[in-house]
């Protein structure tokens, strides 16, 4: 065969050309038909950018319908970094902008603007915010002379505002820019229309307190604009736009008047006591404390005060390391802890409620069982001696008297008699100690009430921290008066007294009362999306022969021979009788922890108030005083409510 034949060679050429075209068709089919969906998605990602506008968060109301967290509009001036790089007189522009801002009430230096421009963080389209909260005059000027300010733009953003300042900061928490980890892990909620409230890198989220816990309710639905951009990332048109929608409003059980009173009383009293000597001469450092006010009939949290506290606004604007360290040591205590739910203290004599209930319920004593109290109690082998505060001799006393005058000896005796059992621990557990209350706030502590077995287990696990694993009679004796093997949170203590007040129901303390529609009108029942029902987590059996003697004993505390009578001298208990118990818990080498736990009015319990103050001395003189001041406002409210005969706001 002639391999040089033109006919053969032409055929060969034809085959090659056909091969080339077949290859092209195959590839075209692959790209446009087989792989098209995947590649087209990539292409679409390339040429669209999503611009999210944060929607206003829901407002927060207190129990009486007052707005305690609101929103306001902040005017923000921004520079588009991409555009700025193309501006010929860049430096002049920045100088002009600084002049305009400064001349219109927003003093700013050129160097500050440069610093912000150099910040790597910018939003998706390269907008860098230069000045926040600028005046309307600035906006007027910039709009009027827009051609002099290329790349400069302004926008209105909503930011949180607190009409009551720092009040309830520990409850409300604060908001801030989402962290990189949260962006990955945080589950976005849906709004009432079922739209997912997706997060973006510059989303504002609740970082503490109610803002954090109810993030899914409070967060608004961001406005989502999908813009088409060209290859230089310049927007050329809008593909879709979903306008922002406000988040749900919420209403709390918190009463801002009571909250403010509790905070103020606490801070004032700590300041008065600070540096003074207590009865045994130890100097009161009085660094910190907390107040809890509960509704014993629902578990609703009316107030949670903690001192020292902080201004959440500082966090919103970004805290310096220096300021952060300052906040961790205010008068020797950290301002960043909410002591009402996180602080753990020996309850001291306030715990006698639990011991008394254990002894009465189990038939160890009755209302008339008496002993002779000579101020000292000796137990066990090796022998241990315990005494009343100040070795006070109370003579022959029964349970009622022992509670009123706070006879430790009577309770040492009870502790001695119940040694070998877990009757006190069981009673404590029933009242809700030794576990978290489940309050709807982050970082709650559980406290502990040790049993013999638990003490042993602790020693085995941490031999250095707990050098002694044996359970002595002395341990049970001290447990009976709330010392040594027990710590509780102020909230747990308040709940135990709420249980006594309501006759034995253990409620989960709750901050949230109602979830409302966005921009709700409180007088319109249709605007209530849901009401949080009281949540019962347990019951304590408190028949009359158990509850009666305890209440009798505690009723006497704030009057006559009672341990807190001095603190309540000025308080009119005829209309508003108070059932309460002082506590003075010893802390090695420091002044005592002062505690007071109570409810009122005795005949129709409506409020539980407890105060716990660190290194502040005797129960009555610190915690008792603060509690009384809170009752002053509560009693006033009770009388007003009775006069108006309205039950509408709290049903």
């Amino acid at each position: 065969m002639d391999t040089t034949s033109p006919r053969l060679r032409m055929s060969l050429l034809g085959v090659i050309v056909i091969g080339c075209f077949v290859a092209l068709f195959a590839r075209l089919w692959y790209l446009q038909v087989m792989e098209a969906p995947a590649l087209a998605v990539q292409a679409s990602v390339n040429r669209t950018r999503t611009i999210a506008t944060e929607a206003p968060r829901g407002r927060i109301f207190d129990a009486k319908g007052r707005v305690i967290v609101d929103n306001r509009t902040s005017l923000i001036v921004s520079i588009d970094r991409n555009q700025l790089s193309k501006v010929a007189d860049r430096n002049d522009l920045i100088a002009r902008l600084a002049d305009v801002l400064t001349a219109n009430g927003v003093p700013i230096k050129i160097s500050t603007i440069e610093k912000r421009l150099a910040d790597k963080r910018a939003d998706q389209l390269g907008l860098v915010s230069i000045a926040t909260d600028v005046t309307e005059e600035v906006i007027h000027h910039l709009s009027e002379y827009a051609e002099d300010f290329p790349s400069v733009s302004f926008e209105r953003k909503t930011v949180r505002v607190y009409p009551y300042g720092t009040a309830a900061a520990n409850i409300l928490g604060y908001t801030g820019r989402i962290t990189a980890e949260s962006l990955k892990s945080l589950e976005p909620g849906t709004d009432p229309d079922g739209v997912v409230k997706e997060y973006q890198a510059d989303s504002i989220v609740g970082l503490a307190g109610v803002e954090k816990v109810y993030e899914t309710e409070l967060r608004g639905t961001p406005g989502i604009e999908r813009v088409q951009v060209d290859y230089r990332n310049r927007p050329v048109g809008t593909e879709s736009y979903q306008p922002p929608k406000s988040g749900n409003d919420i209403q709390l059980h918190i009463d801002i008047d009571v909250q403010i009173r509790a905070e103020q009383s606490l801070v004032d009293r700590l300041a008065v006591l600070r540096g003074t000597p207590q009865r045994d001469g130890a100097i009161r450092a009085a660094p910190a404390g907390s107040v809890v006010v509960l509704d014993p009939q629902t578990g609703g949290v009316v107030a949670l005060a903690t001192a020292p506290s902080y201004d959440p606004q500082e966090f919103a604007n970004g805290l310096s390391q220096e300021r952060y360290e300052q906040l961790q040591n205010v008068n020797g205590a950290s301002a960043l802890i909410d002591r009402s739910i996180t602080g753990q203290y020996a309850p001291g004599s306030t715990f006698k409620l639990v011991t008394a209930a254990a002894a009465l319920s189990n038939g160890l004593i009755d209302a008339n069982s008496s002993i002779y109290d000579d101020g000292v109690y000796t137990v066990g082998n090796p022998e241990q001696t315990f005494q009343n505060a100040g070795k006070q001799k109370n003579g022959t006393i029964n349970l009622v008297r022992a509670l009123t005058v706070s006879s430790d000896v009577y309770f040492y005796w009870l502790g001695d008699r119940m040694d070998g059992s877990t009757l006190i621990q069981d009673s404590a557990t029933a009242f809700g100690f030794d576990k978290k209350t489940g309050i709807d706030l982050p970082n709650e502590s559980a406290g502990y009430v040790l049993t013999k077995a638990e003490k042993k287990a602790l020693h085995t696990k941490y031999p250095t921290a707990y050098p002694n694993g044996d359970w002595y009679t002395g341990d049970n004796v001290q447990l009976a008066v709330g010392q040594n093997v027990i710590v509780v949170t102020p909230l747990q203590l308040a709940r135990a007294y709420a249980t006594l007040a309501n006759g034995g129901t253990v409620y989960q303390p709750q901050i949230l009362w109602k979830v409302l529609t966005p921009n709700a009108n409180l007088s319109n029942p249709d605007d209530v999306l849901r009401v949080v029902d009281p949540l019962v987590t347990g019951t304590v059996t408190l028949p009359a022969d158990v509850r009666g003697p305890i209440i009798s004993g505690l009723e006497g505390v704030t009057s006559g021979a009672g341990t807190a009578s001095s603190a309540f001298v000025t308080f009119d208990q005829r209309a508003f009788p108070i059932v309460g118990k002082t506590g003075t818990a010893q802390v090695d080498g420091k002044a005592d922890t002062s505690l007071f736990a109570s409810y009122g009015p005795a005949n129709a319990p409506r409020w539980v108030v407890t105060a716990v103050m660190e290194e502040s001395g005797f129960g009555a003189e610190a915690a008792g005083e603060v509690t009384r001041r809170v009752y002053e406002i509560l009693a006033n409210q009770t009388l007003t409510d009775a006069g108006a005969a309205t039950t509408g706001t709290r049903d």
Partner: protein
Amino acid sequence: MLQHSISTRDSRMSRRDPSAPLRHVDPVLIGCTIILCIVGVVSVYSSTRGPGPVFSKSYLIKQSMFMVIGAGVLVVFAAVDYRKLHDWAWAFYGVTTAMLVLVVSPLGSQSNGAQSWFALGPFQLQPAEFAKLSLIGVLSFLLSEFRGDIDVRRLLALLGTAAVPMALIMLQPDLGLTLILVVIAMAILLVGGLPTKYIVVLTLVGVIGVVGALNSPVLAEYQRNRLTAFVNPADKSNKALYNIEQSQQAIANGRISGQGLFDGPQTKLGFVPEQETDFIFTAVAEQFGFIGSSLVLLLYGLLCYRIWRTAQVAKDSFGTYVCVGVLAMFAFSAFENVGMAMGIMPVTGIPLLLISAGGSSTITALAALGLVLNVHMRRFQ
């Protein structure tokens, strides 16, 4: 009336002379050419008019003008008997070679790192495009003279003739056009009766040459990257890949029926570079989809078939070789240009003839088609 008189005159003429060239023009080839030119002008406009609202028409006007000039050149190249052009092959070769020398001298202008054109007012004249045609002419001339009797001396003469413009174009440098010249030369030599042993040897030399070039400092880094990007698509450091990725996404975005004229977002927003020239196929594919772009490829295929057919039926070997050269030019341009846009061929700047924007390439392509028509018309004379 007028139509009638023309047809009578035609029929009279053909009755007189059944071999008259005008009786044997190839309507399919002309039809394909016209449609491709229209697709080209539309595609060039769609990829250069900008995002609006005021659309730029400068490319549209320029390209239309080139088409008109090209049509005139086509008529000239078709009208003058190609056997007379045969005698002008060397002169044409000489002129283009001289221009190729001048263009790398300070007289030429530079863009994108290649000194490849003369500035003529608002136009750019690219002599390398014309060199394609002159190479076809001179190689066809030589091979038709040799009548299939090729020894080493004659082979060297052929190779030397082809190597001069190739070397000059490599000086610019323009890898894509050099490659086209190589393919044209190979096709003409193949059909021109080059003994099989020489073909084997030349192929081996070519393969070794390509491998050697890729591993030697002859090619600049960017050239090597462009050439190898399609082989190794996972190499993220390779910037040429971005273009190919964008181009493939744009093509995929066309799906089956296309995004519609002027509605290709990838095209419109400028994600694909060099869109009116090297990557024009992405604009076609995104706007007209698989249906439209495969039709364009089919038209190309049909055009190639008609050229191949003309090569078969040509009256003499010179006509055959010219057609083979033109066939190689069209087929390889399409394969390389479209293949590059789809990521199966190396990135080299080769225009998609008749569709890509560009005066020199369009006019050359139309002139070449004029020659094919010329051969076809005169196959009985």
